[in-house]
Structures are given as structure tokens and as C-alpha cells.
């Protein structure tokens, strides 16, 4: 009678079925973990891209705003902006070059990112570029093309932001 009771208890926990079920569960959990891990990596990458996109938009905006002071110069500029009266101000563009890339990067809060500006006419002729940095070792390149007024003509302003490898 006692023998019969022992057999009954053992068969309920350590059966083959139990082991099979537990194995399947572990496999699912492992698969779920790896999927979650890679997903998190993807999200991180997207977030970095989103941050870079914010930088891109902010960097492109300088061609459309006046900055501060409105008529800033290289010694008093607090916020960079290359436009006056809704048009690109050539003097300010020249002063941006005088500021240098490091100061520009600081004013744009680029962090580890880099920026390049290209201005084209509507027929595609390159009119202006700054700072002409090489993009050979670039990753996460984002490009934004906008239209602005320069010398009473429509120009395309291409802003390129990227990370170094």
C-alpha cells in the first residue's frame, strides 16, 4: 500500500512530459531575451538617429533665423543665424567662416556630430559650401535639403550631419 503511494507522487513531477515542457519554456525565454536585446540595440540606434535628426534640423535652421544679437559679429555672437528679413545675409555667411568650424560646432551644440553645408542654385550648381570636411569615415549620415532666398533668388540649402566612425 505504501509502495503504491510513493510511485504515484514521483510520477507526477519528474515525468518526461515535464522535462519536455520545461525545455520548451526555457527555449522560448532564451529566444525572447535575445530578441529583446537586439531590439533594445535597435531602439538605441534609432534614438541616436533621432537625436542626430534634431541636430540636423537645428543646424539647418541657422539659414532661416537671425541669431542673437540680430546683427551679431564674431566677438558677440550668442546664437548663430544667417538670415535677415527672411533672406540669407551674405555678410553673416562670411562671418560664419570667420568664426571657424569649432566655434560653429559649439554654437550648434553638435556634440560628437559633424556638419557640412552646401548651397545650390535651382539648376544644381554648387554656390557655396562650408566647412568642406571629408566624410570618408562617416556613419549615420543625415541630409536635409531646404529652400531659401539668397540674393533675391531661390537656393537649395543642403545640411549634412554625420558621426565619425
Amino acid at each position, binding site marked *: 500500500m505504501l509502495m503504491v503511494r510513493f510511485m504515484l507522487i514521483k510520477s507526477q513531477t519528474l515525468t518526461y512530459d515535464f522535462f519536455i515542457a520545461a525545455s520548451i519554456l526555457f527555449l522560448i525565454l532564451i529566444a525572447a531575451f535575445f*530578441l529583446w536585446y537586439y531590439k533594445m540595440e535597435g531602439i538605441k540606434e534609432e534614438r541616436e538617429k533621432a537625436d542626430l535628426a534634431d541636430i540636423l534640423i537645428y543646424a539647418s535652421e541657422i539659414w532661416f533665423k537671425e541669431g542673437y544679437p540680430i546683427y551679431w559679429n564674431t566677438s558677440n555672437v550668442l546664437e548663430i543665424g544667417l538670415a535677415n528679413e527672411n533672406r540669407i545675409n551674405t555678410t553673416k555667411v562670411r562671418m560664419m567662416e570667420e568664426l571657424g568650424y569649432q566655434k560653429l560646432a559649439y554654437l550648434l551644440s553638435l556634440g560628437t556630430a559633424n556638419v557640412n553645408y552646401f548651397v545650390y542654385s535651382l539648376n544644381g550648381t554648387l554656390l557655396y559650401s562650408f566647412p568642406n570636411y571629408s566624410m570618408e569615415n562617416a556613419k549615420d549620415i543625415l541630409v536635409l535639403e*531646404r529652400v531659401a532666398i539668397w540674393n533675391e533668388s531661390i537656393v537649395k540649402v543642403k545640411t549634412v550631419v554625420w558621426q565619425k566612425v
Partner: protein
Amino acid sequence: MAKSIIFTTDILVGIGLTATLLALIFIGKPEVKSEISFQSNWLEAKDIVNILSNLKASSFSDTPTIKSLIENGTLKEEDLNKTIIDLIGSFWYAGNKTIASNITKEILENVTKKCFSLQTENETVYSSCLNYSKSISVAYALTSGYEIGKPVSGYVARAWLTKYRKNTTQIIPFYPEGSGWTGNRLEVTKYFSLPPNITIYNATLFVSIHFGTSKSQAQFEQLVVNGVQKKNDVIWLYLQEASGWYGEITTAAYGYVDVTNEIKAGNNTIYLVIGTPNYHSHIHPGMRLIVTYSLSQEMQTGNQTFVKRYYFDNVVGNTGAWSMVSFYVPENAKNVNAKLHLNLKNIDDTKYFIWNTTDIEIYVNSKYPFYQDGINTGEDAQYYCYSIRKYYCYRDIVASKSVILDFDITSNLKNGTNVVSVYLNSYGDLHWGYKDANIYSNPLGDAENSSYVEVSYTIDKPLFLYGEIDLTKEKIFGGEASNPKTFTFNISERESKIVESFVHIAQGFSSTINVSLFREDLPKFTVFTSPSPRIVPENVYVYPNLISEGENSIEIVDFQPYGGISPTNYILPWSSFEYTYLIKGMVGYGNVFNSSQLAIQDAIDRLIQQIGNDISAQDISVDSQSVQGIRWLWGPTFFKILVWDKL
């Protein structure tokens, strides 16, 4: 039994949770790419709005549509200085939608490779793609537009008259008044004054009298205008006989005489002497002097406080004398006061047995006496005669007296036409006494001792404002003599701001009168009814607000006091409607011109056109301003640019 343990409910729930977790991991992927795309489209839309709102049309003078518009002269140099959105909007709201659409297409298709659409007020000016994406970015521009061909900067000017000369009409009424009995004379002297600096073009005296015998002009003794005898120059237009109590014939006559050469600026006098061998001679309604003249005036504002004196004519009757002065109180008058001052001379004081009978009787807007100096009323005079022979009432004549009477008649006034009648030694068809009763008046030489009604009142706002010029005109009824008589006339838009108006009643014989106005949109409105028989004023005030632009009608009816239309009391065609209306003597800022001189000339031209032929400018003030950024014709309205990715 063993297999069933694995697929318990717990296991199924566990698998479900795991599957949900996995699903969430995949579904929870952030949409960074679509966000960037939306932001990029929105920035592009914003940039396009910036270009449309800030770039001038001249920047696109090489695009096919604008180029052809320049070549055919539609677009002028000043149009090219406007922004592209102004140009597109002006064509769009002027109905040239194809041009607006083409300009948009030609400019924006080079600007972006994305799909875009320019819309305004829920209409699409141009769309580069037929199909819309689920995600569309929108940027707005609020603008108003100009009219093609009009400059957006330049000079505007306004002008106003400070001194002018106007052609206007003045009507001087003779009040119905008498009496010259059975061969005795009635003498009436009218003293009046015209403005000093006028040039008289025409002066016509209409004569309306009851006198003579059977259509003859017996006892038409004097009509002296400023010392010039004019009685033989009267052209009689209407003669109507009537017989009295005793079958005697007299004549109601209506005529006119040209007195242009006699009437002068400043003080004037007209002296009339008439009589009738048989009955009672007097002036009938409709006797008036119409003077048309030009007058120089400086621009001024109308009064709000009025004190007007209506002087009686100087009337000497034999025997007895009577006169009926009419005047008006506007419907919007406040603080109205009126006093009656009478200087009455040579009145015979009469008695009937022991009773002091009435020799002076005054009526104010009523058939009941306002004042009487004896026991009886005028209506009862016949009962206080020892005998009556040829309209003469025999009584005891006690003495002769001259009196000055002053009355406050304010409480008896009403809005509209008021009538004050004064009778001395006479009433109706009876007279008594033996001396020349006189209602004395000489406003030119002895104003304070003259007989008059003085009315004062205030109105809330001036009759005319600075910049407004009053002109008075008269429309003669015309047609045939009849009773009743209806006169229909038109008031033009130019004449529609009427501030004063009167009906001048011309009659042969008269009894009791009723004057009404009506229009298509106005039921018949009675403006005057005689308070008693023979109270027919020369003029009746018409509320100006009853007259409006377009067709208006006046109806005059002479009726018997106890009912029925008087069969022979005709309203004569020389009755008239007198109206005073306002013309604006200033013009506001007009179109924009490239020079101040052109703008001023335009303002002066507009002013001269506005004041018309009856007013000539003598001194014009102008004000010219330079203006910038004028917006014409349309807006403000929203323009919106939609940008989306191609599908």
C-alpha cells in the same frame, strides 16, 4: 492522463504571456523615420511660404506666364514689386484662376520634388500630385492682396470746400389775411430781408387774392415791389367767381408777376392794396415770392439752438383786419418755447347793449379761442349785432384802442405745422367798427414793436454738419386744378438727405384742408388738418423722414367741416413742394497716385463732381498723405502650403 498535465490552463496562460511580450517588442519599434519625414515636409512647406511671401514677382520675370503678362502689359513695373503670393492671390480673387495656377506651378515645381499643393479658402490654386499621402505637412501664410495695376505706395489726398457759392431757392410766404369790405381797401405790406451777398437769378411773385367783381379786376389797386408798381404786369392764370349771401359776385384770382428786376439783396418791401365792391377781399393761400439766387458762404456747422421769429405782415383792414401766421416745430425739437407778441392798432371797442363784445380774438391751433377780449366768440358774433347789413354787424362803438399783447403759447404748440390766427373787428363773414384796424408789423424798421411769433427750441444734433451744404428747391405740382389733388414726384439719391420740407398750398376758395403723404411703402400719413374752417395756412411742414429717395406723393383735400369734399374749392396746380437737402462738400482719401500733385488733382476732381452744378467751389482745402504698403481689394485670407511624400 500524463499528457494532459502539460496542456493545463497555466501552461496556456504562460505561452500567451510570452507571445504577447514578443509581440510588444516588435510592435514597440519607434517610428523615427516617419517622424523625420514629417518634419522634413513641414520645413519644406514653411520654406515655400517664406519664398512666396518674401520674394518679389520680379524674381520670376522669366517664367512663361509672368513673362507673357509683362509683355502684354497686364503686369506693370509696380506689380513686379509685389510679392509672389500677392500676385497669385490678386489673380485668383480677380477670377483669373488659370493664371494664378500657372504661376504657382511654374515657380514651385522647380523648388521641390515633393508633392505640394497651394490652397486658399478651401480652394486649390495648384496641386502637383493627384493623390494625397496619409501624412501631410501644412504651413500657413495670412495675407491680403492688391488690385493689379494699382501701386502699393504713393500719395492719397482728400479735399473739402471751405468757401463756396450755391444756387438755392428761398420762398417768402404771404399769409392768408384780410379784410377790405364792400369797397374799402385792404392794405398789406410785406417786409422781408434776403441775404446781403446774393446774386438773384429769378424772382417770381405768385398772387393769390379774393377781390373784385365778376372776373373783373376792380379794386386791384396796388402791387408795389420796392417802390415799383407791378399791378399791370400780373399774368392771371386762374379766375374763379363766387357769389355771396346777397348774390354778389367776387373773384378768386391766381397769377404771377416777374419781379426779378425789383427784388434785391438785403431789405425788400412789397405793398398790396386790394378791395371788392361787394364783399370781403383778402389774400388766399398760395401767395408767395420765390427767389432763386446764388449765395457765397463759408463752410460751417448747423445750429442746435434755434430762435425764430415769424413776423406778421402789416395788415390794415377796413373794417377789421385778420391774419393767419403759420410756423413749424420739428418732430425732434426739445425745450420748445413760443411767445406771441401783438401790436394791434385802431381797434374799435364795441358793445352790444350792456355786454362788452369781442373785438380781438386769437386762435392757436384750435377752433376754440385762445384769447378774446369780450363776451362772445367769433362764431357767435352774429348774435351780438343789432342788425346785419351787407356783412356789417351794427353794434355800439364805445372807443378806439391800440393794445400790445404778449402771450406764452408754448402749451398750445404741437410738432409740425402750427397756426396762429388773429382777428380784429371781424370774423368770418362779419365785420364791425369804423376805423382802420391794423395788425402792425415792420420787421425791418421796427422789429421789436412788430407783431410776431417767436419760437425757440433745441435739437440733439445739428441740422447739418461741417462739410455739408444745404440747398433748397421747389417742385410745382402742375396738372389741373382739382379737389382732391395728388402730386407725385421723384427724389433722386443725390437729393435724398432732406432736412426740411414744406407743402405750399395754392387755392382759390378754401374751407378746411387736409394734407397727406404716401409712398408705395408708406400708408397715407396726414401731416396737417385745419383745426377749423378757413384755417388754411400758406405752407404746411412735412416731416423730412416721410420723404425718401424714389417716388413720393402728396395729397391735398379741401373738405367741408361737416363732411364731404368741397366741390368748388380747388387745389391749384401752382401748389408746390419745397425741400431742403444736404450735399457733402468734402471727399475722403481716394486712389493712390505716384505724386502728391496727381492725388490732389484727383481729390479736387472728385469734389467738384460730387457737389454738382448748383455749387461752385471758391476755396478748397486739400490734405495729401504719402502712404506705404497699401493693400487693395481682397483679403485678409489664409494661404496654405501642403507638402507630402510621393506615394
